């Protein structure tokens, strides 16, 4: 039963990634693209966690944690660059 649920989860997360990619390529405003990349990072974290359940391995969590940190830091750095003209003052 978990296998079928995992297939559903992989399908929805991958479809969500494709929709985010569409918004990344299309996005009229600059911040739309930043938001699309930020959402892609969260979807990739969900995919990694689901892969961890499927492989029954716990070493996937370090990758998920790294993705979470780098996604947040890159979003904040880009927004800070737009707001202040510099990342680290």
């Amino acid at each position: 039963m978990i296998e079928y649920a995992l297939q559903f989860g992989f399908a929805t997360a991958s479809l969500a990634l494709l929709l985010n990619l569409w918004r990344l390529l299309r996005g009229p405003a600059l911040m739309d693209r930043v938001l699309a990349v930020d959402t892609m990072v969260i979807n990739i974290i969900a995919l990694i966690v689901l892969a961890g359940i499927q492989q029954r391995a716990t070493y996937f969590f370090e990758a998920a944690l790294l993705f979470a940190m780098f996604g947040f830091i890159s979003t904040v750095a880009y927004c800070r660059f737009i707001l202040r003209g510099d990342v680290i003052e």
Partner: protein
Amino acid sequence: MTFVLELLVSLLIVAGGSFLLIGSIGMVKLPDLLTRLHAPTKATTLGVGGALAASMVFFAGLEGTLSIHEVLITAFLFMTAPLSAHFIAKAHLHEHTELRDGLPPTGRPYGWSTFDAAPGPSEPDDEDERRGAHD
């Protein structure tokens, strides 16, 4: 017992996947950035929270290896999602100053934070507090 745990894990995975898809559909369908910001910050964060809860129940209940990683990732994501959404909205308002015309009055002595100057240190209350803190 195993069946109940498997059912719980499956339900959490299905709910999380549905929320991920709903968040991304909302980001494609909604009309402009400030409304579009709602979908990923709420629905997608809830979706990844569902997947992490499923993983937590799976490893603790069925595999017998309790790990704290999921709690760490969940706490980190739930703390940073509002922060990054706030930064994105503020940078968007900073880029598009024409959006100022559509904003309602704040109903306070100060204006909107990105467009108008900060209240400043000339407020008498702040001044008194600062003096009191130093003494």
